[in-house]
Structures are given as C-alpha cells and as structure tokens.
C-alpha cells in the first residue's frame, strides 16, 4: 500500500472556497494518520502539477474537489485535469472520490473499466447551499455543513481503513440523518426549503467498481 493521497481543491470561485476550507479537515486527518498528503490547493490544482504529482508519487487515493461534468473533472480556473478517453490511465489502481458535478455518469465508469479500483461520485450536479454572510468564515456556515460534512466522511472513512463501500454508505447514512434533521420542526426555514437538494445528493451519489477496496 502506498500511503500517499492526492487532493485537489481549487478556490478560484466563492463557492469553491467553501469546498476548499471544508476539505482542510480531510487534509489534517490524513496527516494525523501518517499519510503523505499531496495537497494541490488553489493555483496548484493545475494540469501540469496534477500530472507530475500523480505520476511521480502514485497516490493510492485521489480526492477531487471542484467542477466537473459527465466527461471531465476540472481544477484551478476550470482547467481540465481528467478528460474522458484521454486521462483514465492516471487513475489506474487508485480509489477516487470526485466531489464534482456529474463525473460518475460517464467518466467514472470509463475509469473503472480502464483500471481504477473504485470511483465514488455523482451522476447529477452536486449541490450545496451556503449563507451569503458566511463567505469570509465558510466553516461557521451551518447550512453548508449539512451538505458538505457527510461527504467529507467518504475520505475520512477511507483514511481510517474502511472499504470504499462502507465509506460511501456511511456518508449516505449521515446525509440521511441531516436530511431528517432539516425536515424536523426544530430546523430553520432555510434548512427546510433546501432539504430536497440534499436528498438529490443522496440519491445521486454512487460507487462504481470494487466496493471492498481500501487505501
């Protein structure tokens, strides 16, 4: 096992800045667990650095944050990091979690076909909400937390030695807990009105490939 993980987290847009900050928890836990963390943050999440780091260090787990579509995953300034029918070899023998829109629709299955152990991602847009007032303190945003924190657990569970299937199921379980909390009478008006979008994330999160794989 290669105890190296690679994380991309561009922050060239306000909403990506929320993912950027919330991903820090995963970076910290990976370091605590003794992993070498290739943290391609902000401008470093470009194609040149990504290719160089992944080829040289051969991480066992790759965690993408940012934008995507059914055929690409992007990094800083929406530069393509992984394109379908071109870059699948870069993800061979790795576990991938792509916290981007739609990348599990075509790209994920294609990567698994070409040798990626497991690909966890979304077959529709990954959606979250945040408070305008939280832009300078993203980690204090309680609405954003309901959406992002459970998905962080995919990476955290993997880093703690669980299988891809367990990590995927556990994050769904936490999203379901948050969903019912958001629908309860104790929730805020904002939580109730956006709960349906969290439900969308739950049903659109998929795991492709080997459910028993571990980092």
């Amino acid at each position, binding site marked *: 096992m290669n105890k190296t993980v690679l994380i991309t987290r561009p922050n060239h847009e306000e909403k990506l800045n*929320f993912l950027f900050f919330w991903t820090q928890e995963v970076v910290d836990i990976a370091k605590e667990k003794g992993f070498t963390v290739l943290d391609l943050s902000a401008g470093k999440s470009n194609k040149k650095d990504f290719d160089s780091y992944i080829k040289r260090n051969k991480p066992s787990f790759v965690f993408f944050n940012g934008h995507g579509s059914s055929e690409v995953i992007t990094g800083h300034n929406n530069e393509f990091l992984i394109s379908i029918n071109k870059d699948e070899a870069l993800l061979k023998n790795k576990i991938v979690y792509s916290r981007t829109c739609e990348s599990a629709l075509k790209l994920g299955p294609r990567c698994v076909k070409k040798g990626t152990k497991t690909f966890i991602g979304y077959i529709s847009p990954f959606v979250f909400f945040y408070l*305008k*007032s939280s832009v300078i303190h993203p980690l204090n945003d309680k609405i954003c937390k309901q959406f992002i924190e459970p998905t962080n657990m995919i990476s955290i569970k993997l880093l703690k030695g669980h299988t891809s299937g367990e990590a995927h199921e556990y994050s769904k379980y936490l999203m379901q807990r948050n969903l019912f909390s958001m629908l309860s009478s104790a929730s805020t008006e904002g939580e109730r009105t956006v709960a*349906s979008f969290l439900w969308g994330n739950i049903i659109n999160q998929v795991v492709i490939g080997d459910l028993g794989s571990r980092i």
Partner: protein
Amino acid sequence: MKTQNRKDILGNKKTREQLQKLVIARLSAIPKDLEIAVGNSKYTISDLQRFVRENNEIGKQLMETQLEYLRSMASGEIYKMWPNEQNSTHYSPQS
C-alpha cells in the same frame, strides 16, 4: 427511470407547465440570504427559476429531482430512508 419520467412528465405540455409553476414556487421559498452552489457558473435562485421557465437542461434536471423528491414524500418512500442507528453497522463515530 429518469428518462422515462422526463418523457412522461416533461413531454406533456400541460403537466410540464404545472410542474414548472410548482418548482418555481418552491424555489421562491428559499430565503434570500442563501446562495446555491451548482454547476460551473455562479447561478442564483433567480437563474434557476429562469432555467425552469425556459425548460433548458438544468431546468429539466431540477424539475426531475424536485418531482422525485415530492413523490417520495407523498408515497412515504423517503421515510424508509430513516437511519436506524441501533441497527446500523456504519454508525461508529470513533472509527
């Protein structure tokens, strides 16, 4: 299933127009202090309402998801998702 839903619901003009009104109204209920993060552009709730009105690809996806959510609520399907922590093999905050 999604494709079938789209064909059935979004293909029927009258039903689609009713669904458009419903989804636009649901989006109107979102408090103004909330921003949505979806897709590669900085969309606002007003943009999403316009997409639904225009019936473009994002609008269609949004209508599908909202329709499925409402159906799950109405049928009680959503409550079958209720996590049973005592029986859950995944619930282990320490590990």
